[in-house]
């Protein structure tokens, strides 16, 4: 994108003052909301994590929350489950969206947008509506999934999908996948449409196969989009909450416990605000590390 910053390398002092005043006045409303309801609570979250903070107490305890956290077996389970969710859902989401996008971006506009809408539907439908209908479909007795799978001969008796520690996490990941591919598909379709066509044509004239054209020309050009998609999908997967709260509440036997749900459980069910805040800080740190890693990885791949 071009920045129209022509000539204005040094403004006169009076002009600069006027720019400052105007600039900050325009920024004022958004800064007010941003500082008041994002930055301030973020700082407070970090601050509270050093306190034994409950309904009745507010006492400085240094790093004790963090120490307790790393010794807490449920937190470890939650951490492992969260990582499983991320490690499974992020690559699957990216590959699936890219696959869909490569098929639909060449279609007639009308069909492109039809498919884009269909894959975006679960996102717009809303996490709660999606979750309750899946709960019904997964239901052991009246659920359609058991019925269909039995008729197809894939299972012999009804399975209690969400009530079994073997299947519950898999079910959660499945639903999460349906709600996360919509946005990457939109992004990939747009990125693929913007690939430089003269390069593609030149390669084709030189006799490159479709696969070669894809890997050598399109893939490097959509790399920034891939990177962006990796980051947002990772963040989304880390934050998966409604599904868990409404379907399993972290059960059975903590098999679907995630960090996000465990934060909620500690802070809002047990009123352990300090402990919950410490977990929030750790979660934020983990996400930052993951994003930075993907950034690095994709950069070195590209370079």
């Amino acid at each position, binding site marked *: 994108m071009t920045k*129209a910053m022509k000539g204005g390398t040094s403004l006169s002092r009076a002009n600069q003052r006027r720019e400052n005043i105007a600039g900050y006045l325009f920024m004022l409303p*958004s800064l007010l909301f941003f500082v008041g309801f994002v930055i301030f609570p973020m700082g407070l979250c970090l601050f509270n994590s050093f306190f034994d903070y409950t309904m009745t107490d507010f006492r400085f305890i240094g790093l004790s929350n963090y120490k307790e956290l790393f010794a807490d077996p449920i937190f470890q389970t939650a951490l492992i489950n969260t990582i499983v969710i991320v490690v499974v859902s992020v690559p699957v989401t990216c590959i699936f969206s890219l696959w869909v996008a490569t098929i639909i971006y060449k279609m007639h506009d009308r069909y492109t947008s039809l498919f884009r809408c269909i894959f975006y539907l679960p996102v717009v439908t809303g*996490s709660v509506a999606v979750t309750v209908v899946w709960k019904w479909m997964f239901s052991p007795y009246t659920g359609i999934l058991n019925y269909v799978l039995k008729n197809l001969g894939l299972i012999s008796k009804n399975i209690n999908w969400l009530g079994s520690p073997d299947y519950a996490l898999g079910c959660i990941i499945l639903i999460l996948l349906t709600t996360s591919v919509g946005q990457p598909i939109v992004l990939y379709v747009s990125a693929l449409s913007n690939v430089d066509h003269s390069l593609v044509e030149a390669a084709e004239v030189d006799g490159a196969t479709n696969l070669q054209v894809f890997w050598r020309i399109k893939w490097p050009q959509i790399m920034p989009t891939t990177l962006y998609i990796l980051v947002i999908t990772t963040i989304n997967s880390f934050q998966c909450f409604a599904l868990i709260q409404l379907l399993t509440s972290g059960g059975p036997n903590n098999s679907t416990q995630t960090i996000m749900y465990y934060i909620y459980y500690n802070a809002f069910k047990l009123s352990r605000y300090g402990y919950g805040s410490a977990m929030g800080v750790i979660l934020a740190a983990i996400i930052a590390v993951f994003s930075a890693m993907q950034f690095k990885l994709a950069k070195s791949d590209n370079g």
Partner: protein
Amino acid sequence: MSENIKNAAPQVHHFKKPKSGNQDHSVHQTTPYQVVSVIVLIIIAFLFTFPLYWIITGSFKSAQAVNARIPVWFPTEPVTANYVKLFEKPAFMWMFNTVFVCVMAMIFTCIAASMGGYALAKKKFTGRTIIFSIFVCAMALPKQVILIPLLKEMAFLKLHNTLWAVILPTVGWPFGVFLMKQFSENIPGELLEAAKIDGAGETRTFTQIVFPMIKPGIGALAIFTFINTWNDYFLQLIMLNSTEVLTISLGIAKLQSEMSTDYGLIMAGAALGSIPIIVIFLMFQKFFTRGITMGAVKG
């Protein structure tokens, strides 16, 4: 969820109008791979629409049909009993609350973000690079982790358990400013200079020159904010708990926890909660898509 269009990254492709005449593909021959993939894609697409189909048909099924061991694929004798039951609950109020929250969040976000985005893109005030970096970094952080202190803050401001406790944090979320900065970058500097020379003040420049030029961006942001606020279950769950301030998402969740096996009623709630927002999405789909793609582009 999708609210998280966060930018942590890229130096991206030019934003061209998608699909400006790349019809060269018509010369390609259709390979078996393409045929198979399209067929597979169509099957998957059907599976993706199935939950919605199941919500809608389920909401018209009788209790008997809902609990049948052999699923009723289509309610041949549709009943409205579920909706009658739904509206015996305060479903109207849930809808009203939801719309109120979404509209307010949308209006405030659009005003604050278009002003802020314009300033970040076009005003060379001291500290703007730092401010912008902070906005971008904040987008990459999980929104939910700030909910604990936010709850306390709202309690302190005596806003807890009011709809404003959901509206205000939504407006504060930095994505809007980021998106509007992207759109404002395209305003030619010459135009702003010309306005200045003609003696237009800052306010007039903004309302008469900038605003009309970033209208498409505001459209994208408006629809984006509306849909995401509608579906922001976690924030609503934390901030709202007395019956008169519940939103439709919370209403459905409540139905589920209170009468977990009355799937007909729950589906009626889910239909009420999702159909309006789907219709809005389909109507403004173009704006929405543009918002998503622009949000990914870093100038």
